[in-house]
């Protein structure tokens, strides 16, 4: 079953690349020709990461309503695209941008901005990608009851990803995500409704029982990682940071450039919440575990644990395994592909080799796709460094790009010095607050303090430096 899934993914991934042009615009932005359905799934499935089938139920299981923060930010996270997306796509078409940093670096005429953004993206991507690989290995390991070790599981799943991303670029990501996305939807609903029914006799009955026994788990802010009631500061700032970061994650943002036209882009944003609905059954799974399976450690193992204990037919286990792999791979492939593209387009080419030809770029991106997968794989299976701290930091970093993008498109008076110092201040404060738990008043996310410093610096320094050439700025800013 699972092997069948991997085979289909590979086939779809290879088949999809045969039509695009050979250059970077084809490899990175799919010749700007993606239609509604594919764009919808590419975005939906990239967000449904390994987190969906492991972390999501794990949060609901151990922290209750705290998990609803995911549902909250997803509701409006993509809405900014409806407003600035068409403009970004148009600028991409006019100037040939395929990445976020290209747009911003051109707006502010700054190579350093391009390099800084590329580095922020890479720092943020690596822990994210590593977690996806660990998730894939973990699923193989649990479902085969240890017969396939973590390292082999991760290697199998990401071997497949590597092949189709290497060959087909963004089209490989797009069409496999479409297939993987549909698969996950079906699985989320069937498991999310089946498990509460099997264990409690229905979703309503399950929540009624939970309301009697653990009412605090059914309302915000839920529980913290220590099992006590979470703080409002922690809950709210997690939502704020995620909303800001959501529309700006560079591997996501790049997909604006793949849209066939503005209408396709808008339509995708409109229908995005319908993908978000699938989080609800996913969370049901975690809630189902609270009373029936107390004490599962780590909490992320709750779904595989329930499944293995129910004596389900092998087909169902195989389906789950394939679904969880789909979730992990559909996020991982987008990350690997974006990381390679960004490193070449925004860093290497800008800083060292402006004379790189289109062909050389595509070849280099392919090469880096392999290298980056290798590095992430090393972290995933060999290294003992804790990634969770790094992941927290990465969300804080990404959110710092949000004010820069708004300034680029809406504030003509913003200057190069302004955005560069704003980014620097934002990232510095985020790191500082992250390292000093004493500063984390009410558990407010370090990135939020970073954002505050970022915006203040951006505005002050911009006003203190001479404005940029109005003719140049006019091409970007809404007026």
């Amino acid at each position, binding site marked *: 079953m699972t092997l069948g899934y991997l085979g289909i993914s590979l086939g779809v991934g290879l088949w999809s690349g045969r039509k695009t042009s050979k250059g970077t615009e084809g490899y990175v932005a799919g010749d700007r020709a993606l239609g509604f359905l594919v764009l919808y799934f590419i975005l939906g499935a990239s967000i449904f990461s390994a987190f969906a089938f492991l972390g999501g139920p794990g949060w609901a299981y151990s922290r209750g*309503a705290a998990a*609803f923060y995911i*549902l*909250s*930010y*997803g*509701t*409006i996270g993509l*809405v900014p695209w*409806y*407003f600035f997306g*068409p*403009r970004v796509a*148009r600028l991409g078409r006019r100037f040939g941008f395929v990445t976020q940093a290209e747009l911003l670096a051109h707006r502010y005429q700054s190579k350093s901005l391009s390099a800084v953004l590329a580095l922020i993206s890479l720092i943020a991507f690596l822990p994210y990608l590593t977690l996806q690989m660990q998730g894939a290995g973990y699923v193989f390991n649990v479902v085969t009851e240890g017969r396939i070790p973590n390292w082999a599981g991760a290697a199998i799943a990401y071997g497949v990803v590597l092949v189709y991303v290497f060959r087909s670029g963004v089209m490989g990501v797009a069409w496999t995500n479409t297939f993987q996305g549909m698969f996950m939807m079906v699985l989320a609903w069937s498991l999310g409704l089946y498990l509460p029914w099997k264990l409690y006799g*229905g*979703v*309503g*009955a399950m*929540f*009624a029982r*939970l*309301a009697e026994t653990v*009412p605090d788990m*059914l*309302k*915000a*802010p839920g529980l913290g990682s220590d099992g006590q009631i979470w703080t*409002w*500061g922690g*809950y*709210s700032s997690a*939502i*704020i940071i995620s*909303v800001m970061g959501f529309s700006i994650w560079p591997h996501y943002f790049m997909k604006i450039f793949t849209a066939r036209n*503005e*209408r396709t882009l*808008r*339509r995708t*944003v*409109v*229908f995005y*919440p*319908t993908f*978000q*609905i699938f989080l*609800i059954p996913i969370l049901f799974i975690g809630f189902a575990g609270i009373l029936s399976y107390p004490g599962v450690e780590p909490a992320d193992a709750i779904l595989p644990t329930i499944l293995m204990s129910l004596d389900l037919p092998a087909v169902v286990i195989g389906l789950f395994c394939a679904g969880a792999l789909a979730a992990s791979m559909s996020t991982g492939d987008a990350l690997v592909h974006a990381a390679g593209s960004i490193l070449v387009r925004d860093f290497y080419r800008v800083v060292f080799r402006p004379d790189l030809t289109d062909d050389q770029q595509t070849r280099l991106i392919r090469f880096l796709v392999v290298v980056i997968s290798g590095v992430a794989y090393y972290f995933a299976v060999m290294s003992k460094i804790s990634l969770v701290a790094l992941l927290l930091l990465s969300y804080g970093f990404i959110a710092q790009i949000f004010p820069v993008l708004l300034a680029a498109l*809406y*504030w*003509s*008076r913003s200057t190069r010095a302004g955005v560069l110092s704003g980014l620097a201040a934002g990232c510095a404060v985020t790191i500082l607050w992250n390292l000093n738990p004493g500063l984390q008043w009410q558990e407010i996310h370090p990135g939020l303090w970073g954002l505050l410093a970022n915006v203040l610096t951006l505005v002050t320094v911009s006003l203190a430096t001479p404005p940029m050439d109005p003719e140049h700025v006019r*091409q970007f800013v*809404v*007026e």
Partner: protein
Amino acid sequence: MRPRLFSSRLEPAQRRVYRAVLVFFLVVFLGMIFPLVSVFSRVHPMILGLPFFLFYLTVLLLGSFGVLLGLFLWEDRTGTSGDPEEDAL
């Protein structure tokens, strides 16, 4: 120059529509975080088998979808673009 959220090429009536949509999403956003969320963060009454808070979030999700869909259809029907193309440069 004052920063603008919406293009000056839009008719005032069109701009009002976009402003209303933006305000709606601002309210949704504020409704999800402290302090407003604490008002809706309750277990009872349970609706459709869901705790009130989860039901509330589901309504926000479907409401957001509805408003965006409405805006999209309105744009299609009236041929409006939220960010009309400037004259050829």
